[in-house]
């Protein structure tokens, strides 16, 4: 894209499954649409580098095939795509929006009548002792390294956490010829029992559960130590990771490690939507903020919809359905009634499909609920990585009268670093709530301020009105 101030019917932020599906649908309806994403290639996280890669092993063949088809359809559609393009501010402009972006160190502004945020999910932060040491990463990070360029860890790899992605990656690693030293499972005792009451609803996507069991079988076959009931995971080392300690069956153990991969589920990436002022609510089942949405992803802001995991974690197939539903709703709004497939029956079918798949989520959420210690870590654990603040620093501010996350931020600088709360805002809210004996909803969320990505002074200055 080289034109500045280009104007579109629809701008979509995020080229993952939801964004791509929405774009395809909108383009079929003759809407002018562009998809923006800071990653260089489309696909989002789950279909990372899918146009190039071959390293994921047999487990996700179906996902990979369907994902590749979706990306291909996106490429073939009339929708425009701007990769390597970071959105750093969105303003209301008349009935539509002004979207400020940066690519290749130059900033520009696009206009849109309608906006879909499809920024997906991010890994839940895992504030545990030593998590800032070089050698500690997320499972998602390791999977990105594998998917993009076939990069695998050297040395002793320990996977610690819970949820399908952790097991999936471990099996992918095994298939690539690298044996993890241990898979530590942090699922709480009794969690599966509690989750079972959601099982009837989960039967709509029972295949997923079967896959998960298959992963464990494969890991056992590969003689990967699977240790359950793990708590108190800690990373140790001087300038980098050298060992991982944990408690299982009441006994503390320590193992040598060169790489520790953490995973405690994923949460909606709410940064952009919150910065625009879209209303959010705390979801107790998923322990995270979710946007308040009406039908087909409608937010509290007119003209703005959210589709995909950014609305609430549901997985990529639901995300694609959400994208299509949001795009169809916007086409109806903009009066594009002429599209043949835009009939009510097709929309109802999409919604029903979505509902069937969504039944799995409450089961998974209950089974893999994060431990309370991650939501309110011990005093010596770093919460704000950027500003190097511990949970104790934050508690001290609360005791001195900072009643909410934004006051704690003003007082301690928590959330004022480059990541602007992406790694600490959730913990900040839950820690304030725990400390004050209130709910996260009552504690409130960190206010997000632009720019959402740290653009340079030179880039911003170039946008000044001329003749001023």
């Amino acid at each position: 894209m080289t034109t500045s101030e280009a104007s579109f019917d629809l701008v979509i932020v995020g080229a993952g499954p939801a964004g791509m599906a929405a774009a395809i649908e909108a383009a079929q309806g003759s809407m002018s649409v562009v998809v923006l994403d800071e990653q260089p290639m489309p696909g989002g996280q789950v279909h990372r580098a899918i146009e190039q890669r071959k390293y994921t092993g047999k487990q996700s063949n179906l996902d990979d095939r369907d994902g590749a088809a979706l990306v291909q359809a996106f490429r073939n559609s009339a929708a425009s795509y701007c990769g390597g393009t970071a959105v750093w501010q969105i303003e209301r402009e008349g009935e539509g929006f002004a979207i400020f972006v940066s690519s290749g160190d130059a900033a520009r502004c696009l206009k849109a009548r309608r906006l879909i945020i499809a920024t997906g999910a991010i890994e839940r932060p895992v504030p545990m002792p030593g998590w800032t040491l070089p050698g500690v990463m997320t499972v998602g990070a390791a999977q990105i390294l594998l998917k993009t360029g076939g990069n695998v860890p050297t040395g002793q790899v320990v996977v610690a956490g819970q949820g399908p992605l952790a097991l999936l990656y471990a099996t992918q690693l095994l298939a690539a010829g690298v044996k993890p030293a241990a898979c530590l499972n942090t699922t709480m005792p009794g969690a599966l029992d509690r989750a079972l009451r959601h099982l009837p609803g989960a039967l709509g996507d029972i295949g997923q559960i079967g896959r998960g069991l298959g992963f464990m079988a494969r890991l056992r076959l590969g003689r990967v130590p699977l240790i359950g009931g793990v708590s108190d995971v800690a990373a140790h080392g001087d300038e980098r990771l050298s060992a991982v300690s944990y408690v299982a069956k009441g006994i503390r153990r320590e193992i040598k490690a060169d790489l520790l991969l953490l995973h405690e589920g994923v949460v909606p990436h709410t940064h952009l939507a919150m910065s625009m002022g879209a209303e959010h609510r705390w979801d107790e089942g998923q322990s995270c903020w979710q946007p308040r949405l009406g039908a087909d992803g409608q937010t509290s802001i007119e003209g703005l919809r959210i589709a995909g995991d950014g609305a609430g974690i549901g997985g990529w197939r639901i995300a694609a359905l959400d994208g299509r539903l949001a795009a169809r709703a916007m086409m109806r709004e903009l009066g594009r009634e002429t599209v043949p497939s835009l009939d009510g029956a097709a929309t109802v079918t999409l919604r029903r499909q979505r509902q069937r798949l969504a039944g799995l989520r409450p089961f998974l959420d209950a089974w893999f609920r994060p431990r309370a210690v991650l939501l309110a870590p011990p005093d010596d654990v770093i919460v704000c990585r950027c500003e190097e603040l511990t949970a104790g620093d934050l508690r001290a501010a609360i005791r001195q009268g900072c009643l909410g996350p934004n006051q704690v931020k003003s007082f301690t600088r928590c959330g004022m670093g480059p990541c602007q709360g992406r790694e600490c805002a959730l913990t900040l809210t839950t820690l304030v709530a725990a400390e004050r004996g209130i709910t996260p909803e009552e504690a409130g969320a960190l206010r997000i301020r632009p720019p959402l990505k740290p653009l340079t002074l030179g880039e911003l200055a170039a946008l000044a009105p001329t003749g001023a």
Partner: protein
Amino acid sequence: MPFDVIIIGGGLHGASAALHLALRRQRVLVLEKSMVGRHASGANAGGVRTLGRDLAEVPLAVAGMELWHGIASLVGDDCGFHAHGQLKVAESAAEMQALEARQASLQALGFQHEELIDRDELFRLVPSISRACVGALIVRNDGAANPYRTTLAFRARAQVHGAVFREGAEVTRLERLEGLWRVTTPNGCEDAPFIVNSAGAWAGRMAAMAGDTIPITTRCSMMIVTERLPHFLEPVIGSQGRKLSFKQSDQGSVLIGGGHQGHPDLDGESYAINTRNLALGAAAALALFPQMTGVRIVRSWAGLEAQTPDNIPVISLSPRLPGLVHSFGYSGHGFQLGPIVGSAVADLVTHGSTNLPIGPFSAARFQDQELAI
């Protein structure tokens, strides 16, 4: 009746008035609609200056500077105050002439604190500034402080001396009853003989609620903060020809202001950043420090405050209503005046007058103006 004075608004001016009144053994209640320091007091550039002020403000600001240089003994916290000077630079001969004229007008009033310096002295003090600059006005013992920290320090010290602060206490009604003010919040009513209106951007509404018509508009000045950089700048930089304030914090980050306006939302207590206007601030900074072009902006924000028609505050007793003191309308330059004005307000409450030079700030000057809230 538990309180002698009820202060409406828990920003720096409210907290400062609370401290000075509490020091004089007045029983003080501060009612803050949201949280102490939530708006202008927590969002401003932190400049502590006498430089460049409206001539009407100069005597008060100069007197206030002494308080700043002893701030730790006043509130038990140094508030992050540094005094490395404030400069207003000129980029042309014409701008230099304007600075000379300014210095002359101050000297005519007997003030020597603003000093004209040439290129050599400017580059000695600010080695990193653009060589296109030709000179500056400087006040060597001006400086900067941390605004949120300062506000909280005033509150804490006021509380030590018995002042009560209530947050989440929006004033919804003001009425006179039997010689007292009755102040209503969602949590109930309080009565007191005196009220102080230090409600910042909402002070015009408070004034109207009491029965005074004082025209203000809302100012929504935006700020930029950069990533942390190696230390390169000691004084605070302003400009004769550009809307700019530019300083480096003790954290290493650079704060860029200048009064470029965002979109305020008074009812929502919030605002929207105006990116094009923000870009003007970035452009002004780069005009004086072009080497910063690759430096990253980490965050921007704005504050909500009151703007008067003549750009100077309202600090006085109400011209018509008994027991009411106004302290608002600081129009983008109230931070430095915070500590001293609290003392003036305390004088007005306890004695009905003050020796501090607040004459030009009388609310009566707007009596003939039309309502424009």
